[in-house]
């Protein structure tokens, strides 16, 4: 049984603003084993990016623990020992703004090398070349600026930057959401190859369930700061339990009849996604839930588990699965 690379225990991140407390992440727990890919799926306000940034240390947690390879790192990154910054890396969503438009690709890729003194035998330039080779980009790209290359290639550079410090865990925050489908295919292929070669563990954040069907080892759905459902991929898609999961699945536009048949019966979602400042009482999803019961507006459900590692948070399953 592979070791646990990352474990979140009841992680909470609240932001205190003039308009109220934003409970961006409100008691998130999961673990990811070595060489696994956990797909974290949710819409706006779900808190998936907050969870990612807290893991990275961009935010410090309000409550709860983050364990990395068994060690507690539950604080902001400036308070963490430096070597964790090498091990945990991130690829951001928008390649246009995750690469400084005023710095050349060489300068961008050199930064992590310089900070962690990774120069190898030939100096920084040679290391940068090696990184570009690893992601199958020509070495001449070193001298280009981010806006001179396409969105897909920028994202590949962002991946190369994440690999520069030889990490073991990478958070991918919607890395392909802004890209075309053929470019996405190339990047996903690259990510999966790299995962094999370099023994990487991924936390893949996205709203694209079809993508997770093909890439994730396990899938978790988040809504307004809490996890609704989490299960291994095949099991998850075979029997989606939470009403929100079923709505998500039925809204996906697909391209073939076989896929249509796999989707749950078309359920139209109602209403807007509430803001995390105004979380509805009881179960946060009850206002939009087609299966709402009386208890749902009063009591927040607990997470219950089924065999095969399938967990769900919903009153429908209170009496066990």
């Amino acid at each position: 049984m592979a070791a646990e690379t990352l474990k979140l225990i009841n992680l909470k991140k609240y932001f205190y603003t003039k308009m109220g407390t934003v409970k961006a992440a409100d008691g998130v727990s999961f673990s990811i084993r070595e060489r696994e890919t956990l797909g974290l799926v949710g819409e706006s306000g779900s808190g998936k990016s907050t969870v990612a940034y807290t893991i990275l240390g961009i935010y410090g947690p309000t409550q709860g623990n983050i364990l990395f390879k068994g060690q507690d790192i539950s604080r902001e990154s400036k308070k963490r020992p430096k070597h964790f910054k090498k091990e945990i890396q991130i690829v951001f969503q928008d390649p246009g703004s995750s690469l400084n438009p005023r710095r050349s690709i060489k300068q961008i890729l050199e930064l992590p090398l310089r900070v962690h003194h990774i120069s190898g035998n030939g100096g920084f330039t040679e290391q940068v070349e090696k990184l570009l080779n690893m992601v199958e980009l020509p070495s001449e790209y070193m001298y280009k600026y981010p806006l001179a290359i396409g969105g897909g290639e920028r994202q590949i550079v962002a991946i190369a930057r994440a690999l520069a410090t030889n990490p073991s865990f990478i958070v991918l925050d919607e890395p392909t959401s802004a890209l075309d489908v053929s470019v996405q295919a190339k990047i996903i292929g690259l990510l999966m190859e790299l995962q094999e070669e370099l023994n990487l563990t991924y936390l893949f954040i996205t709203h694209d369930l079809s993508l997770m069907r093909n890439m994730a080892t396990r899938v978790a759905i988040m809504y307004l700061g809490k996890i609704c459902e989490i299960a291994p991929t095949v099991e998850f898609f075979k029997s989606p339990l939470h009403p929100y999961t079923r709505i998500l699945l039925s809204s996906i536009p697909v391209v073939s009849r076989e896929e249509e048949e796999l989707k749950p019966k078309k359920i139209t979602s109602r209403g807007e996604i509430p803001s995390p400042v105004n979380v509805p009482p009881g179960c946060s999803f009850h206002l939009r839930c087609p299966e709402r019961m009386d208890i749902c507006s009063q009591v927040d459900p607990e997470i219950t588990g089924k065999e095969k590692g399938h967990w769900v948070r919903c009153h429908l399953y209170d009496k066990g699965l």
Partner: protein
Amino acid sequence: MGKTKTADLSRRWEKVKKSWYKFSKNPLSIIGATIILIIVCLAIFAPFAAPYPEHAGSFVNFDEASMPPNLKHPFGTDVFGRDIMSRIFFGFRFSITMGVVVITLAAPVGITLGLIAGYMKGTWVDTVIMRLTDIFVAVPPLVLALAVCSILTPSVFNAMMAVTLMWWPWYCRMVYGIASSIKNEFFVQAAEVTGAGKLHIIFREILPNCYGPIFTKISLDMGWVILIGSALSFVGLGAQPPTPDLGTMVADGGKYMPDQWWIAIFPAIAIMFIVFGFNILGDGIRDMLEVEEV
């Protein structure tokens, strides 16, 4: 090794060519650049370019005093018989020097403070720096300059110091605004996550993204500083006679309007050209520094 050097050079040359393309797209920018180039050359080479360089100092020739523009003196002469054109060329020296000195001192200070305050927005550092800026901004600029100049002896040097003192806060504010919004961009987060230090982030990640507005402001400011310098001289707090200075010349010449109009008008037109030239040049520089997407 030699191959990389030539490759490097050719890349830099490409960059230069591309910048020129962006700059020259608007023909006005070239006009502005030409005007400024001419003025700067006249300033530097005034002793050679001016037809009567000695008129720029103490010189008196009452036979040729107050002559309207003619072939010998294209801009006429003033009440002391000094050639106005030559004095204007020497006057450019003071103006350009004023502009260069003030901005060289004020801009770096203001920019650095603005960067630091912007990046550390929300902390005590931000508060201290920006309140300090507020103090300087609260005093009306000309009043501040006049006060400083009156306390110290009126001279070119003191005028420059006074103007510098009231100039830096505007750079600070401008850069503060830009820096505090850039610090939330992903690429800054990416650098922080990697473990880059504050100095690197401020000067290498954030600052390059401020170049556009900074250089545009610098070129516009040149015109403004020169104007304010002339205003100080106009009230007698800058260059002292007989040093030729555009502002002083306009002040002195004002007494003789409208009969001997050339004594005030030509220096005034010269001031106008400097400001106009820098303004247009500023537009061109802004175009040149734009980062474009493919």
